[in-house]
């Protein structure tokens, strides 16, 4: 929403937000692995604020966050573009009419922006869920699925089953299950979205 206002340097902010999207996942995972190192920049910032160092990649409680944060950092720009495209298709005349009727910013957001962005929200949610379920590279590069399986996702597990244990049949079956899960999630979202709209 902020990037759709008349804020100065708007285009520069849009470009900056999109930069991580064009970087390869392997490079992103390496950058963040160095950042989350015990003596890396993030722990140095924590120490500067008087907080103890966190074993980001070795602790079972912190490791999931160590792979979630890079995912958000990388994917945010993509969804920003999707939402910006949606926001720009909403005719300004709706907001002008709402202002004349006495609606505030929050009311305009609640009754104009949000309903008209519903298809975009649906699309973004579907894509985000699919991407989230089939995520592989950050876990594989940063933690290898560890510690103690704390970041082992389905895709990493499939890879290990196939290429570390040589169980190709089982890995293929797991892949089919992964497809079924993604399909089920998408259909569920479609049902929820369709019911809301009707």
């Amino acid at each position, binding site marked *: 929403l*902020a*990037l759709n*206002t*008349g*804020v*100065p*340097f*708007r285009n*520069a*902010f849009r470009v*900056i*937000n999109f*930069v*991580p999207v064009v*970087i390869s996942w392997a*490079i992103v995972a390496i*950058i*963040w692995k*160095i*950042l989350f*190192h*015990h*003596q*890396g*920049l993030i722990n*140095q910032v924590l120490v500067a604020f008087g907080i103890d160092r966190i074993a980001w990649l070795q602790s079972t409680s912190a490791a999931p966050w160590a792979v979630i944060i890079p995912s958000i*950092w990388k994917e*945010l*720009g993509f969804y920003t573009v999707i939402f910006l495209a*949606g926001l*720009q*298709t*909403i*005719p*300004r*005349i*709706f907001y002008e009419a709402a202002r004349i009727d006495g609606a505030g910013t929050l009311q305009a957001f609640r009754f104009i922006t949000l309903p*008209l*962005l*519903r*298809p*975009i929200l*649906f*699309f973004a949610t579907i894509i985000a869920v699919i991407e989230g379920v089939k995520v592989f590279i950050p876990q594989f590069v940063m933690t290898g699925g560890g510690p103690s399986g704390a970041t082992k996702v389905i895709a990493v597990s499939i890879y290990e089953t196939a290429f570390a244990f040589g169980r190709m049949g089982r890995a293929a079956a797991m892949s089919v299950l992964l497809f079924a899960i993604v399909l089920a999630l998408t259909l569920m979202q479609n049902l929820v979205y*369709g019911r809301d*709209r009707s």
Partner: protein
Amino acid sequence: VIRPQQPGASPRAQRPFLRRLREHPLLLVALLLQSALVLLPLVYMLSTSFKLPVEVFEVPMRWIPRELRIENYVEPLQQRPFVRWFINSTIVAVSVTILNLSRRSWRATASRSSPIRAATSCSASSWRPSSSRSRPSSCRCSSWCAISAGSTPTRA
């Protein structure tokens, strides 16, 4: 009939810079902070690319290395088949782009002759807000588009 606004035609975008600055000071600060957070890992990567291995995890961290190690850039180019890897990546990128675009243009062409294909080819536009949804130029059958998009048929 409400027509969607043309991108970039916002009157707000054409206001003088200082006026826009006065209108959105907090938003500007918030976006500056957010952009700094987004750029930080990239600047860190750039800084690390000029460091010796022992300097990477130095405490406190140095943003500008004592000595810029240009060899980090020269060695991969000289000692590894970097050009070959780059050519491989280019082949993949060009092939994927051409095949994807040709598939899309085939679907757009096919949609002119079949309503079922039209519905399929129009589905990509279905995530635009329903209020501003208009008939895509490649789609000749509005009812099929509307069914594909999950809304009531629009009148041309």
